[in-house]
């Protein structure tokens, strides 16, 4: 271990986390927003099929799959750019905070999109989803209930979305960050 590495170890602080968290969180937040927008407009422009398999439903799974890897990428970035030594708890913090940044950035961009470019975006998605549900083969009472819950689900405040989004995205990224620690981080000699 050279002098530079040793100095970096001693300087380790929460501030050293942030560049990796913000860079990776911003990239994945942007990807999540763009993917959400892509599937959103796919949904708006689609014909009602009466199937549950629609752009709106598959978007959540695909976005989750993409963003879950951010925790691992953050750990990789940190071990390349800051220090190759990373403990379990530090990796977990990197992962969870990356998940939180992704949620915040994705949400802020979505709100800005609606505010600046397409104020009718959410309404158009809701109308498309309702049209699709109306084409489904199910009892009318079930259909009405489903439409009500969908409408209610789409009408969530930004604060509520953060409340739901951060813990789950944070936990997934924490898990992948731990995989990242197992793969990319080196152990100090006294930990071997």
């Amino acid at each position, binding site marked *: 271990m050279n002098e530079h590495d040793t100095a970096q170890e001693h300087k380790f602080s929460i501030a050293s986390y942030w560049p990796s968290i913000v860079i990776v969180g911003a990239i994945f937040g942007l990807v999540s927003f763009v993917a959400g927008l892509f599937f959103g407009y796919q949904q708006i422009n689609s014909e009602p099929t009466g199937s549950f398999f629609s752009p709106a*439903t598959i978007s*959540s*799974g695909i976005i989750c799959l993409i963003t879950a890897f951010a925790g691992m990428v953050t750990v990789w970035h940190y071990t390349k750019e800051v220090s190759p030594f990373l403990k379990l*708890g530090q990796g977990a913090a990197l992962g969870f905070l990356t998940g939180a940044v992704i949620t915040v950035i994705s949400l802020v961009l979505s709100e800005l999109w609606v505010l600046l470019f397409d104020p009718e975006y959410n309404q158009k998605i809701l109308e498309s989803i309702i049209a699709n549900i109306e084409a489904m083969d199910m009892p009318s009472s079930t259909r009405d209930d*489903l439409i009500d819950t*969908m409408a209610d689900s789409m009408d969530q405040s930004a604060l509520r979305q953060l409340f739901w*989004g951060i813990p*789950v*995205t944070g936990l997934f990224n924490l898990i992948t960050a731990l995989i990242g620690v197992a793969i990319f981080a080196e152990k100090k000699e006294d930990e071997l």
Partner: protein
Amino acid sequence: MQHRWFYTSILASLIFLVIVSLGGGIWGAEQTIGHWTGRLLEGVCHQMPDRSFSINGVQMAVNTRCFGIFAGLLAGWLSIPVMIRLKASKKWTLRFLLCTVFLQIADFTGNLLGLWVNTNISRFMLGLLLGIAVAAVISELFKQKQ
């Protein structure tokens, strides 16, 4: 085993995640979509009824593959103390993880191309394997210092 406090915290989170993923059925709700369990996980799963298990006639909050992953993670996490004793090398746990990821991709692609039709049970089992493999890789971090 080291980092016991951390291990217990994540264990509690995973138990909570699995309970939430069971959906509104265990809470007496008529449906999961719109219920708090469904809302908590709507951003991570498509929640399609025909691709989900149901409890008390109410679909779960995630599909069978996601539920398999969560259940596998929990089962794997509970097994970490045993995995540490088995002293599986990092190389083998990583190979196991890569195999399970490959299986997921192959299963999804084969189904998409019409080569075979996967079922709720097969999706659940493959998800379960993936969750266990993830925990196996992470188990390395809990090994006691020599």
